[in-house]
């Protein structure tokens, strides 16, 4: 396990546009078999990073490795083991769904026809339909079929479900779970950049939040939900001398307290219990709320 190369690894990746660095020293390590979330505001450097992973852009400095290979030097080897679904998908308008899949398959060493049939069926895609007549949702579905049937080891998704209706979004996520991880789930890596974080919540094992082209937080999803909690406490009388280290955004309303713990909620809960609260409730933040809290606080919480 440990001598296996990372599915994706960047070291001090920098990509400059004009005078500014869209990606500014980003180091990522995505283990094989993980489903990895890549979150950040618009303009944080997510798409630029992904384009560097795919050799669509050359890094200004730093390095990129996919499955241990350099995508600039071993372009063919990397591309045969990776698939990519961007947010806006373009196909040749004169081709039908069938033609398009045949065309995509012609570049691939492998093509799983059983998976193709299953997905076309699930998405109710008509193979005789012209690509120019497909809706945005159907184009994304077709791109996903093309990506999954090639049985790549790494599936890179860049805002794949933005602008799609909720049913198509659901089916998209289910197809990634059901069809992409079909074979050996431990060997199928997903790297997904998205703003629709709730959609992917159950799928994400680990994530990185980037801002200004830099990593501000990398955590396992379970650990993040354990660490980031919203705590509500109510006391019989306003507690005197209650200190709350490690609590963010504390709101006090007389004998009521509300706060977000971002480091050690259990220590905070013990501290609150010591003042015998009438009510004490803690719940985890969702990944989306964690991303918002991290970006709004403006600083990394290491």
């Amino acid at each position: 396990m440990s001598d296996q190369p990372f599915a994706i690894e960047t070291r001090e990746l920098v990509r400059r546009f004009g005078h500014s660095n869209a990606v500014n020293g980003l180091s990522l390590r995505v283990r094989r078999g993980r489903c990895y979330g890549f979150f950040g505001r618009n303009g944080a450097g997510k798409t630029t990073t992904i384009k560097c992973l795919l050799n669509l852009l050359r890094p200004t400095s730093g390095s990129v490795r996919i499955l241990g290979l350099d995508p600039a030097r071993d372009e063919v080897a990397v591309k045969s083991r990776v698939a990519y679904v961007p947010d806006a998908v373009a196909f040749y308008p004169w081709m039908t769904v069938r033609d398009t899949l045949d065309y995509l398959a012609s570049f691939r060493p492998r093509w799983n026809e059983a998976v193709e049939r299953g997905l076309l069926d699930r998405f109710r895609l008509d193979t005789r339909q012209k690509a120019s007549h497909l809706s945005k949702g159907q184009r994304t579905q077709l791109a996903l079929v093309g990506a999954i049937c090639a049985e790549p080891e790494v599936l890179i998704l860049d805002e794949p479900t933005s602008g799609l209706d909720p049913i198509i979004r659901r089916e998209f996520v289910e197809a990634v779970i059901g069809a992409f991880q079909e074979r050996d789930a431990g060997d199928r890596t997903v790297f997904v950049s998205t703003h629709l974080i709730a959609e992917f919540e159950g799928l994400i094992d680990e994530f990185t939040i980037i801002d200004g082209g830099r990593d501000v937080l990398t955590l396992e999803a379970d650990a993040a939900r354990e660490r980031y909690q919203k705590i509500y406490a109510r006391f019989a009388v306003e507690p005197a001398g209650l200190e709350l280290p490690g609590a963010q955004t504390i709101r006090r309303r007389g004998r009521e307290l509300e706060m977000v713990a971002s480091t050690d909620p259990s220590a905070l809960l013990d501290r609150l219990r010591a003042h015998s609260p009438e009510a004490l409730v803690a719940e985890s933040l969702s990944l989306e709320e964690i991303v918002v809290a991290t970006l709004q606080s403006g600083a990394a919480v290491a």
Partner: protein
Amino acid sequence: MRMRLNFRSGKPVYLQLVDQVKAAAAAGAIREGEPLPSIRPLAEELRVNRNTVAKAYAQLESLGVIESVAGKGCFIRKNGSPYRKDVRLKLLAEDIDQAVTQAHHLQVGKADFLRLAADRFDRFDHQRGTNGRQEVP
């Protein structure tokens, strides 16, 4: 057996699955020899990673709650923990300690606590007696 996940509980997702299967087996909602849902449809239904379900099942197997039969899937085992009784009691004591701590903070005394424990025990027994048609609230 119904499985539900709560991403706000702060408990790792795979552990939620482990605990729900254990609770369902204790309450008779799923009985010896009955199959668990297979990994793929359950993962799709719960919209979680397949590795998460696989990890939960692996843990349940190591706890002796389920057994996996090659090519057939996972089944609830006859209630037989692989641990010796003193180990089992020690494991249980850890959970009871937590409940006792909680009782202290909720100002629930020993007598009430023991009565409640007996009551819950009966309730699970009753559930198993009624084929586990009802859920333990």
